[in-house]
């Protein structure tokens, strides 16, 4: 029985890594933000299975709802698609 439980946690963790990689590689930032929300969802389930309900509650409220919405609002006010030509971060002084 304990092996089934551990196996479920390992499977969820692998799914988590997969969704996180999808969020990194996705050029459509809206999809990427939703994927990070899914990462938080899986993470909070894993926390609950590892008997940390306090952390699971925090992750559910802040990770799934508030952070995702804050990013969605930011995307609405800026740009939706990642631009390949744009220089990243603060390093564009060289031009």
């Amino acid at each position, binding site marked *: 029985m304990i092996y089934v439980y551990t196996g479920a946690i390992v499977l969820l963790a692998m799914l988590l890594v997969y969704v996180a990689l999808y969020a990194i590689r996705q050029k459509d930032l809206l999809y990427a933000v939703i994927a990070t929300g899914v990462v938080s969802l899986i993470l909070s389930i894993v926390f609950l299975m590892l008997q940390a*309900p*306090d952390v699971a509650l925090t992750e559910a*409220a802040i990770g799934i709802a*508030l952070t995702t919405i804050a990013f969605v*609002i930011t995307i609405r006010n800026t740009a*939706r*698609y990642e*631009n390949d030509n744009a220089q990243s971060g603060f390093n564009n002084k060289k031009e």
Partner: protein
Amino acid sequence: MKKFFVIALLAILGFYLTIAFLQIPFGQNRLGQPQDEATVGAYYLNNTKEKSAVSNVVTAIVVNYRGFDTLGEVTVLFLASTGLASILYRRKEEEVERINKPSSSLLQTGSKFLFPLVVLLGIYVFIHGHLTPGGGFQGGAIIATGFLLMLIAYQKYHVSHSMLTWVESLAGVLFVSIGLWGLITGGTFLENSYFPKGVLNSLISGGAIPIIYIAVGFKVAAELTGVLDILLNTKEEKSVPSNQNEK
């Protein structure tokens, strides 16, 4: 040259971190068994119920034993929301109506129905923080999601920022003054043993811990609601270049 400095700095940091981590014996149970009296975890597990009359040991650690850390976390959140507000806040006269279309009546009715329930759940979570999993941060975040629902559904919905400021400040003052009261009566900041304890497992138990968690809940809810309201009411700048590869 700059890159060299960065790499050197990272190398030095990594060196000392490696040294520090090599001294930790990995693979050993450092929390200890509850029977082993010498470890910290065993002390918390064995003594929390008698000393502070709190059935949720995690809450006792977060609010009482490590209460100073919680005060620091709340302060960090306060500073973050203040910084965001000082960058993005606009006064009434410059305020622009939001750009999106009015939301559907389905969303409006649903949010009107769900809003009190969500707020009630949040209040339940932080009032029962010393009995069940959850606490001030979780409850405050849940309340903020309730306000978020209303802010999304109704364009005219506004939270009063002076009200939020008052709630936040009073909650912070309450937290610090309970800590100072512990300092005066017990000799350490946030000392809990000089408050009436109450009965274990009942709603009024744990001395100052429920009061502190209620204050933290109000504070977190006010801060996060303020952040979301400011973010939603930011007008779209015309200077932001529209992206070319939009499909």
